């Protein structure tokens, strides 16, 4: 594109995407009134224990389709330190992910998981939890027919007064909702409901999280009876550090526009006298190209009918002959 020297004599160039695909990707990632579902970035730090790696792997599997997992170690990411977030923000920008799950393991913080959210690809809030009593989804045995499908919308349940009274648990509740929610949908297929996440505040600093499959059983009414079977990973989350979002940033992020973009309905007019008027466009009739009727001799109706009559007469005539004989 043309290069022009700007007012501050800095050479600037307008760059537009050269392919339609690139343009669509850019439009998808642009800020919108109604946003797409948040994508999750899963990565791990310098050292990870077996528990942390399996937690990350299973979380990725649960969120398949809306998550990106990085397999390499990231030594320069330290979410709670001021300079250690630049890599995270860069990854968030590149992959268009607004939630990240960072797993690590150290002597001081064993089996550590940092759940964080981004606003405009900058860190919004963080919460650090420790994993205890982890049970992998492979260790659960259940009837494979009820196994939840990939990408189905889950039920999310929170139990315990801690989620209301303790600030950190409140934040964890919000983060877990954001993480497990997936896309916001308007229409839901009731047969596709097959999973539920159960979070219970066991103590003011500990949350028990488990993933269950849903069994719908017949009951007398339209509403089926729900039965939950534990299928997925279950773990205890112990709250460690956290960082609340900046107040001003929080206010800005929670702002939502009430107007829906008016959908322009084409070819419809409102008339005071006649009411609703519509315009119908008829394509041009190419008289020269209209398929003509088949006028071949054998196909003509008179001929066909004549033949049928003849056969009838013959048939009756032959019958008469037979009868006479």
């Amino acid at each position: 594109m043309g290069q022009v020297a700007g007012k501050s004599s800095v050479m600037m160039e307008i760059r537009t995407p050269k392919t339609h695909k690139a343009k669509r990707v850019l439009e998808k990632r642009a800020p919108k009134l109604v946003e797409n579902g948040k994508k999750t970035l899963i990565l791990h730090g310098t050292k990870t224990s077996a528990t942390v790696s399996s937690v990350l792997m299973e979380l990725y599997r649960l969120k398949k389709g809306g998550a990106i997992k990085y397999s390499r170690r990231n030594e320069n990411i330290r979410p709670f330190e001021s300079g250690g977030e630049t890599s995270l923000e860069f990854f968030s920008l590149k992959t268009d992910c607004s939630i990240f799950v960072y797993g690590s393991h150290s002597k001081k913080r064993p089996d550590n998981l940092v759940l964080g959210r981004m606003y405009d690809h900058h860190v919004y809030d963080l919460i650090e939890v420790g994993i205890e009593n982890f049970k992998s989804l492979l260790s659960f045995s259940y009837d494979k027919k009820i196994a939840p499908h990939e990408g189905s919308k889950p039920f999310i349940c929170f139990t315990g007064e801690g989620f209301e009274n303790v600030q950190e648990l409140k934040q964890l509740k919000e983060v877990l909702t954001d993480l497990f929610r997936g896309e916001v949908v308007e229409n839901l297929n009731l047969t596709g409901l097959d999973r539920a996440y159960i979070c219970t505040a066991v103590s003011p600093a500990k949350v028990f999280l488990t993933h269950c499959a849903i069994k719908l059983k017949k009951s007398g009414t339209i509403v089926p009876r729900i039965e939950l079977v534990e299928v997925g990973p279950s773990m205890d989350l112990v709250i460690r550090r956290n960082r609340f979002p900046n107040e001003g940033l929080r206010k800005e992020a929670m702002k939502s526009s009430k107007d829906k973009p008016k959908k322009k309905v084409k070819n419809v007019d409102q008339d005071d006298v006649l009411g609703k008027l519509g315009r119908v466009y008829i394509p041009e009739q190419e008289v020269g190209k209209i398929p003509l009727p088949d006028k071949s001799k054998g196909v003509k109706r008179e001929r066909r009918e004549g033949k049928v009559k003849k056969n009838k007469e013959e048939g009756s005539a032959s019958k008469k002959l037979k009868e006479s004989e």
Partner: protein
Amino acid sequence: MDMETDQTYQIDVGNLLAFNPNHRFSSAPSSREELVKECVTEGTKLVQAIADTLFNLPSTETNDGPLVQLPPPSTKLPREKHLPRPKPPTKWEEFALKKGIQKRKKDKIVYDETTDKFKRRHGYDRVNDDNDIPIIEAKASDEPGEDPFAKRLDDKKKRVGKQEKNRLENLKSAAKAGALPSHVQLAVTGLPISGTKAQPKKIGKEALGDVAGLAATSTASGGKFDKKLPGEKPPKKQGKHHKYLPVVPRYGWVDEEKEQTNKVLGKLLSKHSHEILNVGKAINMYNDKKEKKKSGRSDKLKAKKDITKKKPYANKAN
């Protein structure tokens, strides 16, 4: 919607979310399995509560199953990105607003008077194509030596350049307000220039290679043993390119040198040898050579001696 059942759960149907703030665990820490069981039972109650509301919503039957329209979620969660910011009006839009100019929709097909036909406005065989003008009438204000066709092209280039500049300015002001359209990126391509507005010249591949070659010749071995960077090509052979035939012909092979001389002789001594020689060209070459010899060596190589200039300190003796 926040619906409170008799057990006062907080249910958000849009998110399929339920929260029971009132459950209190038995203070005695029971075994792990019992704890898990209790959590699952509590969870079941919550899911049942959501399902109660969900299955009572008006549903439509489709091939895949009953489809239900969910209400919008009631729990407020922070946005991922900022709200789209309004674009500042462009310079033209401001001007149009001030003057009260309305936008008019242009037709794709326009009537062309010169050919009495309907032609398209843009594209192949368009209405006012610059290339189709056969005659441009001279006006009193025209200068005599000017080419009006070239002038038209030049004017168009200037207009296009001005428009590009305006577009860039509009995009810059939009970027300042944080409202750059999603598919446009403004990239800084060079360092800020002080003084002249000259654009930095981009050096081509071949020019770089030539410069590298020049630098190589300054080394003692003529650049033959210099370390080459990955991707750098070996230097091209400078000077005349000779192809020498083998002195001793190979056994069983044709003697190429003999063939070469025979060929030349044959051409010279053949019947049509006078036709091969381009007499006119030969005469011209001979004459040129003679003239060059007369005037001595080329004037450019010899420094001109200016006899009028006096040498300083010429007469030291005096």
